[in-house]
């Protein structure tokens, strides 16, 4: 089977062959034929393009089958659709697409009948797919309870159905990186080509110099989207200007922040544009070899990328003399093996070279001396996905996408205690409040927004009073957070902020590579201190005192670890602590001094109370208690000594009258 129908020759005069690529190859797909004039050929090409843009002929059923789609049962749903079509002898093609971004409403199943717009149906699962299929195919009831919206315009007849991008979740988003996600079939090259893939690559490789490409990206103001925010064009220029025969380009797809899945969605839903971005970047810096370092926990992304690379090779978009130029470039996929620290630049280098993923001192910077000692540029997936847009539409266009001085868009992964979870792409410089309330729909019904955690384990928590801050690099750093890779976890009154700090510290401590002293030892000590705060110091005075002293040490330790650590992981390890201390100091004080957890989440500080009105005085709870915290005699009401209680809850289980319950101040208020 040919890799691409679009690229196939229109007639004998077509000069493009594998091994003899034509520089007009991409232009020809939409505007061709170019090397000869022929109406029949032109019609052939236009028909092919129209078909590819639509996604196929006849009736098409698109099912969101990215990882989150699969998590919502897409595999079984697809099987059921196939069976239904057979049972009812309906001719239709099932197309697996990626993630449209509205994870809260997964699964999305789109149906496109000939002559009709592509209609999106939401909240589909194995339990109701039959209902949808009956409505759409048996009764031709396109407008039904599952209908979410339509893709694109097909005249007045469908004006009553909202266009997807005008719905509440999408209307304030600006889809650049995610414009094809959930729409285009990510498995085939033609899907991407029809969406415009490789037009920018052709423009760069065939009509621009590497210096021009670097400067265009520099002028666009694109900053690393993996978290550090270093100006991409600047990094490229350094590598470009380092004279070495062999250079490397690495795509950092080791998205490790818990709660971040933007890169995964891009890789699964639109892999060809990432490859295009890599191609342009490699051309800009002079690299002939590229690597994609993808974490092992993303098998579907690896699968999509592997297939995409192979297809590109087959048509000469990867390999030697790309598009008839002197530029050669090919890509190898390297899978991560489960180490968050391998998202760090120099750790990736160590890992690709076959070693433990331990970071290296800089200088020398990778752009000067990186993989195998050669100049190497590492870029994040999202950064690379922005590159074709910049080349196609220009630096100014990209600048104008952002609000104020900021440039471009950013994808955020919105999750946690928020009404709408999913992926959102917004202009850099948009207010946090817009994302949380307008797009995210605010806190869950019956609950109160407390904080949003941005930047993963290297970031910080932002409380309600600062929601009008703009999401731009410097502004977030001012608040003690950071843009990070884009993970945004919303918390409500049920979340304990001390526990959040402890959770991130545990994560960092488990992921510390162990090479440098401050991070290896300091994160363990900080974790111990934070854990002790979330527990009651049952026992001797010594422990009580230690607990107090520990808190005093916390700030100093956080500072040392920040100042002295070798890499970004250690340098930002203290951020969650410092950030929560800054905005939720009162919660810390309640934990340390009052030994209470206001949100009721810290089990170690749980306060249990016996309801004297219903207590039988049966002594069962007293016997169940492992720490002797219950006093009481037979037939007399029992009482729990808070200072001795370790919060295990055994008494609750033991009580035959359910007289013992957890006291929660926060929950009592709501």
């Amino acid at each position, binding site marked *: 089977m040919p890799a691409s129908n679009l690229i196939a020759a229109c007639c004998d005069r077509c000069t493009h062959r594998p091994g003899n690529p034509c520089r007009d190859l991409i232009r020809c797909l939409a505007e061709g034929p170019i090397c000869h004039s022929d109406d029949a050929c032109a019609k052939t090409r236009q028909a092919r393009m129209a078909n590819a843009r639509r996604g196929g002929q006849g009736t098409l059923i698109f099912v969101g089958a990215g990882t989150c789609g699969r998590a919502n049962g897409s595999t079984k749903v697809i099987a059921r659709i196939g069976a239904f079509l057979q049972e009812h002898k309906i001719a239709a093609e099932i197309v697996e697409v990626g993630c449209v971004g509205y994870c809260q409403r997964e699964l999305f199943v789109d149906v496109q009948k000939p002559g009709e717009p592509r209609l999106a149906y939401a909240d589909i699962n194995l339990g109701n797919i039959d209902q949808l299929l009956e409505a759409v195919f048996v009764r031709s009831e396109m407008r039904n309870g599952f209908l979410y919206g339509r893709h694109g315009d097909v005249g007045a007849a469908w004006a009553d159905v909202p266009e997807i991008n005008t719905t509440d979740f999408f209307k304030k988003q600006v889809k650049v990186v995610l414009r094809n996600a959930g729409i285009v079939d990510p498995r085939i090259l033609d899907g991407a080509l029809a969406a415009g893939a490789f037009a920018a690559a052709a423009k760069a490789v065939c009509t621009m110099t590497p210096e021009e490409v670097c400067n265009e990206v520099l002028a666009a103001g694109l900053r690393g989207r993996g978290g550090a925010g270093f100006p991409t064009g600047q990094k490229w220029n350094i590598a470009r200007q380092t004279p070495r025969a062999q250079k490397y380009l690495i795509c950092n797809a080791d998205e490790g922040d818990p709660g971040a899945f933007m890169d995964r969605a891009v890789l699964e839903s639109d892999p060809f544009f990432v490859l295009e971005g890599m191609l342009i970047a490699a051309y800009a810096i002079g690299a002939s070899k590229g690597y994609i370092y993808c974490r092992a926990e993303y098998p579907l992304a690896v699968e999509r990328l592997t297939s995409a690379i192979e297809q590109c090779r087959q048509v000469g978009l990867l390999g030697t003399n790309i598009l008839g130029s002197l530029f050669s470039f090919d890509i190898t996929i390297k899978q991560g093996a489960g180490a968050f620290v391998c998202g760090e630049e120099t750790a990736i280098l160590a890992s690709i070279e076959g070693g433990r993923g331990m970071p290296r001192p800089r200088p020398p910077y990778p752009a000067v001396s990186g993989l195998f000692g050669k100049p190497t540029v590492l870029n994040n997936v999202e950064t690379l996905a922005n590159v074709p847009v910049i080349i196609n539409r220009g630096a100014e266009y990209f600048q104008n996408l952002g609000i104020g001085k900021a440039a471009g868009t950013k994808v955020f992964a919105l999750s946690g205690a928020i009404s709408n979870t999913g992926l959102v792409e917004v202009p850099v410089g948009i207010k946090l409040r817009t994302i949380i309330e307008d797009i995210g729909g605010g806190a869950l019904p019956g609950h109160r927004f407390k904080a949003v955690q941005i930047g993963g384990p290297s970031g910080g928590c932002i409380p309600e009073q600062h929601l009008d801050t703009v999401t731009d690099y410097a502004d977030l750093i001012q608040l003690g957070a950071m843009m990070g890779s884009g993970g945004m976890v919303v918390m409500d009154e049920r979340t304990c902020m001390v526990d959040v700090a402890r959770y991130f510290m545990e994560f960092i401590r488990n992921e510390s*590579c162990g090479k*440098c002293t401050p991070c*290896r*030892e300091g994160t*363990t000590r900080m974790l111990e201190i934070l854990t002790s705060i979330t527990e009651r110091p049952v026992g001797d005075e010594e422990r009580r005192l230690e607990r107090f002293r520990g808190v005093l040490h916390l700030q100093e330790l956080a500072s*040392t670890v920040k*100042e*002295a650590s070798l890499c970004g992981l250690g340098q930002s390890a203290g951020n969650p602590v410092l950030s929560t201390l800054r905005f939720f100091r009162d919660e810390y004080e309640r934990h340390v001094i009052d030994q209470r957890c206001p949100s009721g989440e810290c089990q170690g500080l749980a306060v249990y109370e016996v309801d004297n009105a219903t207590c039988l005085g049966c002594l069962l709870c007293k016997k169940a208690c492992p720490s002797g915290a219950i006093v009481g005699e037979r037939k007399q009401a029992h009482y729990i000594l808070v200072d001795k209680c370790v919060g295990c809850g055994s008494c609750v289980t033991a009580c035959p009258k359910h007289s013992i319950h957890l006291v929660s101040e926060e929950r009592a208020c709501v």
Partner: protein
Amino acid sequence: MSLVIDGKEVQFTAGETVLSAASRAGIEIPHLCAMDWACKPEASCRMCLVELEGMPRLQTSCTLEAKDGQKVRTRSPRVQAVRRNIVELLIANHPGDCLTCARNQNCELAQVASELGVRERRYRGLKKNHALDLSSPALVRDPNKCILCGRCVAVCHQVQGVGAIDFIDRGFKTRVGPGFDEGINVSNCIFCGQCTRVCPTAALMEKSQVDAVVAALADPNAIVVAQVAPAVPATLMENAQASSVRTMLLRLAAALKRVGFGAVFDTGFAADLTIMEEVSELIKRVQTGGPLPMFTSCSPGWIQYVEKYRPDLIPHLSTCKSPQQMAAALIKDVYPKHRDLGGKRLVCVSLMPCTAKKVEASELGDVDFVLTTREIDELLVRYGIDLNKVTELGALDAPFSSASGAGRLFGGTGGVMEAAIRTAHKMLTGGELKGGFKVEEARGLEGIKIFSLDVGGTTLNFGIVNGLGRLKPILDPLSKGASNLHFIEVMTCPGGCIGGGGQPYDSDPEDIRVRLERLYDADRRSTLKTSHDNAEVQELYTEMLGKPLGEISHHLLHRSYIDRRSEER
């Protein structure tokens, strides 16, 4: 070109680090992991952080390239606070048994803690709890004292080219250990001890036999004798201000006799004997067609390497025992005929710059205990003797008291080769080597030397490998059957025995160069230049051995080897 460090103007050479430039100017910046003679800086301990004007973040001076006009502060309040906190973190995960720790006089962690004025243990929490590794006769590992500086791993992989130990696990659980985290006795470790020499704490040490020697000395039913390796006096001279190697050796003999050793022998004697046997063996192989090239066999780390990694090379090893083992075999066999032991048992202690000798002794016997150069001081201190203050000259004992200049050279790289060539010349031509017996081609500290000499009409090709890490270029052609070398000297440790794993802690390349010069000086001063002219050696052949490679030699002075490759497949 100069920069300012702590207000002082400091010169530097192009490409030098701030750490190095500061050190040469007398400003010591604390550091626990940098070892610029061995490898690139990993910047993992973070102790050497300094403030660089104009940079918001602190910089590690081990990686910071010195540049004209820089202003650096090594002891600002900010730097000291961070540095101190780092030491506190190390201490928090370190045992508290300093009073009984074998390194308490020279532990680098204790040193920095003291320098920074750390007076309390502020952090209490989880401490690592790994098992002690006492499995080998040569080395002891205590991972609980390890501060994960990585020096041992760097030396093992990058300097020695062996790679027997590495980091295991990650984060707080990280520890250093051999493959599969078992005892080193079942690992690919060759016991060269280079790791013990660079370890800043007591995490890696030689297995001390001082107590055993003290017990033997106190045993009324034992006569304890010592043999001293050529490298040892050349090293002890450092602090003792002795004028020559021989002087130092005689002072050491005096001290040893004072504490009760019944006799002190010169291992250099056995070196001369080794030359007789080995050169005869070489000539025989050259004349009868192999197996060639022949490798020396006196470096036990090299032998371990062959047995564990390249047993295919065993036929190429000389079958001669090392001088330590030859001496010990003779001590046990001949000495009782030379002196009435009065029914007491004979205990042979060898003083070596080498940790692998402890393994060699345990495998081949005859040597009862091996003390490294570092253990010698420890032993004498038990008896209240400060070797640096000993002035009297003792005597070495017959019949193993004399060593030629050639034998003395054994202590350094190229020494065995030079000694061998002197005797080979005599054996092949009947005449002596011209030019004062010096073989310039064999001298110096280059990693590999390859040269040819015309010896009485026969062209012989020689190779000298200075440190196991330099072995590859010699072995590659051999694997392809394309080596034209006849005789190759391999020393496991860079510099030869004077750079051995049992040598003093702060030996750097300059120290090794100085020690090598002392050996050349000892050869120059010696009137006896050749092994074959050593009268005691000649007498041994006349009285007992007959000819080199004879039956008794074969029995006492030669050995065999074992394929020790891991059998697990």
